[in-house]
């Protein structure tokens, strides 16, 4: 079959199982957009290319499928950059297609030309510049294969305009044959010997803890991990990316660990004699001061990316492989080992009781108020009104940490948040992508007044396609997290964090065609949320005017060890330092 490059691209996307694309047209991709109306692919025109990248990312995180976005050359491509970096650092499978100037003009500083593959090389898993239409189909196939296998990530394919115009043969049957990339063979199955050693260590440890990362969610290992915790009586702590792997109300679950982690999670890590890290990467926000992180613990590290093993923390038993495939082998081994060890439960019970006492003694806490809205109270109410079943997207800052602490998740992929890059402006477009991918779910973006303003134009996209996302702005009139740091570590020298000059969000959203609501008193919170839940044909944005100077606690001060966290006051005036 003779097809143009544009037609080959669109047909190949179909064959890859792509249904939805987020993008923005421009000169260099005119040929693709010319053919788009004749393709069954559904394209969503975002209002900024960054929105397209985040929406593709949100779609991928919500569904587990590959997210796809389009942009033109030059500014189109550079606008994608933040979005692609956000997805890449959180290991989200996204394939981005950018147009470029025709091959004969490359390197000429032509209109809207940038070196897209050069710019995106450090923020992608791989990228391609297609110079000949004959290579196009094979490149698309490789791009999807690389994005979704091994440690998932971002692949960008740069398409010079002439490549999309030229005509060549396209063989569908050939396209359907398996991909061959001779230099790329990810290791998926764990080493059997290492798995046996790990099982023995797990069964004989006195104070083990599971440290669960985003890899557990993305590989679909959640149930197996939870099962292992139950079989071997191991408390669980999760990273921001791994939170949804464990049901929030699980008796062994201690919540998030790290900088804003719970007291119990951080203390359990610090006092453990064995850390079982699964799909996690010992990020600095998790470990605090690395040299004082879990000083007496042996480490089992299960990860698909061998470069993560031993990167930050020395590992005793490394297992390279896909979390799910490794857990399928490890779980029966652990069961065997546990059955062998008769004293097992007596030993383990002491540890479980200790961890539980930490949990009871120093729970998450905020000072309730019937005068001003507490941000944590809003999150709790959203949880209540959505019955804990909503897909939550967040932006970055205090509200993000409160979501991690106070929304109790019930199924994997329920939280969509920029963990590694910490990208403000992620929440709204990611919610659009998530809702497109999961129309059956309520999708709630919990944002801040600072973050919301970074990509609020995407509300128009939601209006355009009747995507009924809900957005809660936790509005404190500050760049709250920066203010908190300036408050605690810079003697309250609040520099450039005042956002009290802001649009009237209700009117603004109304002007964009959405529904704007506001709550200023605690008593209004529930009613306004119920009102928002009743709307299902348009986006709704609720402006929650909250306590301006609420801080996120616990907090591990920068450079501090996890056990040195600052705790909430628990009703006393002075902040308590943990032991």
């Amino acid at each position, binding site marked *: 079959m003779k097809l143009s490059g544009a037609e080959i691209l669109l047909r190949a996307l179909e064959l890859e199982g792509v249904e939805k694309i987020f993008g923005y047209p421009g000169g260099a991709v005119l040929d693709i957009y010319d053919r788009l109306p004749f393709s069954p692919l559904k394209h969503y025109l975002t209002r900024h290319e960054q929105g397209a990248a985040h929406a593709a990312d949100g779609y991928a995180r919500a569904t587990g499928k590959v997210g796809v976005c389009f942009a033109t050359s030059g500014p189109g491509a550079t606008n994608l950059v933040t979005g692609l970096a956000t997805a890449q650092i959180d290991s989200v499978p996204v394939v981005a297609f950018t147009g470029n100037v025709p091959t004969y003009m490359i390197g000429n500083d032509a209109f809207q030309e940038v070196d897209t593959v050069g710019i995106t090389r450090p923020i992608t898993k791989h990228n391609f510049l297609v110079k000949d239409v004959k290579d196009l189909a094979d490149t698309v196939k490789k791009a999807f294969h690389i994005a979704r296998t091994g440690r998932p990530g971002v692949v960008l394919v740069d398409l010079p305009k002439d490549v999309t115009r030229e005509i060549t043969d396209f063989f569908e049957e050939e396209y359907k044959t398996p991909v061959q990339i001779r230099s790329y063979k990810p290791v998926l199955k764990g080493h059997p010997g290492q798995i046996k050693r790990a099982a023995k260590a797990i069964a004989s440890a006195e104070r083990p803890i599971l440290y669960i990362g985003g890899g557990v969610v993305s590989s679909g290992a959640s149930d197996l991990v939870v099962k292992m915790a139950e079989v071997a009586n191991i408390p669980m702590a999760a990273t921001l990316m791994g939170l949804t792997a464990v049901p929030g109300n699980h008796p062994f679950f201690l919540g998030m660990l790290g900088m804003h982690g719970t007291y119990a999670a951080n203390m359990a890590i610090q006092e453990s004699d064995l850390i079982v890290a699964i799909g996690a990467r010992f990020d600095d926000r998790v470990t605090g001061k690395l040299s004082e992180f879990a000083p007496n613990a042996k480490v089992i590290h299960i990860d698909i990316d061998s470069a993560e*093993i031993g990167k930050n923390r020395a590992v005793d038993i490394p297992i390279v492989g896909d979390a799910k495939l490794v857990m399928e082998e490890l779980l029966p081994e652990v069961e065997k080992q546990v059955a062998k060890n008769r004293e097992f439960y007596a030993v383990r019970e002491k540890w479980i009781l200790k961890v539980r006492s930490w949990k009871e003694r120093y729970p998450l806490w905020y000072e309730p108020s019937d005068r001003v809205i507490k941000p944590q109270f809003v999150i709790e109410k959203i949880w209540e009104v959505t019955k804990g079943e909503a897909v939550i997207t967040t932006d970055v800052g205090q509200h993000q940490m409160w979501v991690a602490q106070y929304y109790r998740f019930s199924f994997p992929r329920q939280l969509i948040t920029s963990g590694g890059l910490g990208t403000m402006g992620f929440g709204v477009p990611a919610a659009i992508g998530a809702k497109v991918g999961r129309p059956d779910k309520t999708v709630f973006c919990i944002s801040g007044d600072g973050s919301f303003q970074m990509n609020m134009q995407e509300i128009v996209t939601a209006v355009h396609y009747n995507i009924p996302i809900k957005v809660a702005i936790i509005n404190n009139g500050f760049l709250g997290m920066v203010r908190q740091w300036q408050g605690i570590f810079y003697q309250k020298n609040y520099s450039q964090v005042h956002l009290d000059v802001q649009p009237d969000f209700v009117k603004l959203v109304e002007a964009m065609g959405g529904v704007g609501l506001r709550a200023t008193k605690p008593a209004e919170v529930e009613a306004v949320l119920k009102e928002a839940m009743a709307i299902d044909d348009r986006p709704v944005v609720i402006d929650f005017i909250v306590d301006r100077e609420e801080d996120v606690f616990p907090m591990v001060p920068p450079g501090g060890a996890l056990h040195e966290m600052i705790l909430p006051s628990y009703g006393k005036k002075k902040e308590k330092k943990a032991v």
Partner: protein
Amino acid sequence: MDRKCEQRKHIISVLVENQPGALARIIELFSSRGYNIESLNVGHTEDPSISRITMVAKGDEHTIEQIVKQLRRIIDVFKVRDLTDKKKLDRELLIVRVNVETPEKKEEVMRLVEIFGAQVVDVSKDTYTVELTGDEEQVDAFLELIKPMGIREMARTGRVAMVRALQGETFGEQKE
């Protein structure tokens, strides 16, 4: 000093797809992760679609291990090996132009050339241009001795290396 923290030079050999982006990716890895390359050498192998990159990087064991692992993550990379402690052949090519304004100097340079098995490849009124192939130590020693003559200009290729066949393995067959 603890061997783990000891800074030393490592020779890392990388087999990579002979493609435009591949080299850029490898070099960018070094700059973005803050590793230092002392020398880097690229050329194709017996299979023209595969290039061999030989690089010398300085660092402690942990850093070098990270470099090797990060290199392996690159999609276009087939194989990475740290050859430092292997029995290997490693060679470097030096081209150096030295001053020989006096007969004594001419004689001294010729003497060194003979001892090191080098070659004079270009001659002018007051300079000799010498080519030397050897391992890094030989090249360094030669340069040290020839320095007093006055070096006008020099070029070194950096090292290329290959595991000795004696070990019963070649790079390509090694499964890692």
